[in-house]
């Protein structure tokens, strides 16, 4: 503020000085104030209408217009007007998807949750969206896959989002796949895997897409539209998860899907044990085990008792003496139990006794 004030004051100083210098001294007549002055000849021509101010700048055209009685509005040359802006040369060119992208779009060649082989998003925008979708997939049950197309591009007739989901995504996984058209969110398509379709009503699914489109349309920038669309879609998917959970269903495995009253699990529904028992093969196996196990245990017990009472009689043998000993010279192991910390094997005495004394 102080700097501005100084600047203004500094600018005023030369003006004040100039005014002071131009003031005629007392007693002198009026003098020129520095502005151009008409000479008499030009002034007369002006007053007579012969001279038109600005005619030297506007040239002949201005002269003619001013001289003409009816002044026409200047319009742009039609030739110039017809020059088209740079852009698609034809409607077909802008609608077609390059065949080189088919693999990424429709053959499962695209990786991750965001597929943009045409690089419609800038690198940073792509990265931001990808991070967002990865986080969504990490935190929530229903994963969300985005395929990005240009606003006017048409999906080839032989391809469709439904076919893509059926062929390249597992039905058992709860997921949503979106064909999103940049700058044209109204054209967005959304398809859920059968896991979701089985447990979520159609109106709820449609509501998710409708809300996402409505929110996206509040933005004008295509990238911002995609941001809002994806965020709103993520919120919608979480709401679907909550709805399913409230109704007692599950999006994770199992077959306890709940869509309506018919599929709602009944309190007296047979549990896993009842199902196993009802299975004939399983029940027979269990019965067999129940009989065989005690029998085996009993058998082991009996065998143990028999072995305990069993006597072991060796064949009669004879042999020559050893060390002239009358009965035996079978020198076995010698164990020391001096140390309670050392292992028995380390306390084996296998050296002659006279060496131990040394």
């Amino acid at each position, binding site marked *: 503020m102080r700097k501005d004030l100084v600047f203004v004051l500094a600018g005023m100083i030369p003006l004040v000085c100039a005014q002071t210098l131009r003031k005629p001294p007392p007693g002198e007549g009026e003098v020129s104030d520095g502005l151009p002055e008409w000479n008499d000849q030009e002034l007369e021509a002006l007053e007579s209408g012969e001279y038109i101010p600005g005619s030297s700048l506007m040239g002949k055209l201005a002269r003619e217009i001013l001289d003409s009685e009816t002044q026409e509005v200047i319009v742009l040359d039609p030739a110039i007007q017809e020059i088209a802006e740079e852009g698609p040369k034809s409607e077909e060119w802008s609608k077609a998807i390059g065949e080189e992208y088919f693999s990424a779009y429709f053959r499962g060649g695209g990786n991750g949750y965001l597929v943009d082989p045409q690089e419609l998003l800038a690198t940073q925008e792509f990265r931001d969206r990808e991070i967002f979708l990865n986080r969504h997939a990490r935190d929530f049950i229903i994963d969300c896959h985005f395929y990005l197309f240009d606003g006017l591009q048409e999906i080839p007739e032989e391809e469709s989002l439904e076919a893509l989901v059926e062929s390249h995504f597992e039905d058992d996984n709860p997921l949503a796949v979106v064909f999103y058209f940049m700058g044209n969110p109204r054209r967005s398509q959304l398809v859920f895997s059968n896991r979701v379709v089985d447990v979520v009503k159609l109106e709820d699914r449609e509501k998710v897409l409708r809300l996402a489109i409505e929110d996206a349309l509040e933005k004008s920038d295509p990238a911002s539209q995609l941001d809002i669309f994806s965020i709103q879609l993520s919120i919608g998917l979480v709401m679907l998860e909550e709805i399913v959970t409230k109704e007692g269903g599950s999006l994770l495995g199992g077959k306890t899907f709940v869509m309506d009253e018919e599929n709602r699990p009944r309190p007296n529904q047979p549990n896993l044990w009842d199902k196993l028992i009802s299975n004939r093969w399983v029940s027979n196996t269990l019965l067999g085990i129940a009989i065989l196990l005690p029998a085996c245990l009993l058998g082991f017990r009996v065998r143990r008792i028999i072995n305990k009472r069993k006597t072991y*009689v060796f064949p009669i043998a004879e042999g020559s003496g050893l060390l002239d000993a009358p009965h035996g010279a079978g020198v076995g192991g010698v164990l020391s139990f001096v140390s309670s910390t050392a292992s028995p094997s380390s306390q084996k005495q296998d050296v002659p006794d006279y060496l131990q004394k040394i």
Partner: protein
Amino acid sequence: MKCPRCVQKIHLGASSCPHCGFAMVHADGVFGSQDIKLKKFSDVAGVVRMKDREPMRKVLENFEAKFPQLFVSVYLGAFEDLNSLRQYGFWMLNRTNYVDVDAQRPNSTGILILVDVNAKSASITFGYALMPYLDENSTFEALSAGHPFFLQGDYLKALKAVIEKLEIPLVRGWRRVRKNPIEVLARGGQTLKGYGSGQEKTGASEPSSGKVGRGEG
């Protein structure tokens, strides 16, 4: 087999150790040449409590019931200056007359567990009849089974563990000798009695005559 004095391997049938010249006569020279009389369970050191003595005898009887030709004797001594536990065990097995062992079980079918409670060491010596089935490793493993109880001074449990562990190689040897008696017996320097005269007897149920080994065969 190993020499009780120099602990070197000796050939089965050697009348004296080829390394140190040890023979029975040397043991007699150290410990005496007269036979001694002992019970199969002798607690000379007095370390087994009175209430444990009867269970101890029961353990020995159970072993005899399981192996009708064999017996186990236990000697717990507190030696002042015993030079060699191996030599003493060797001498004792050959010079002891066990008063409570029936005549059908000569010393050649016996297993002597000798414990020196002063030096805190234990050894096993066995007769000729057991040489095909027992060796230094199997007997040491049996002693190792009783090691924790020896350390605690619980000799009943220790000896019980040792004897139970000794039964394993005996049963295993019994199975082997049923299948191939000549080869198994040969490993212990034994031959099947009457094998040379054509009277081969391989039956495991063949009762022992009690005359197994040199001097009683």
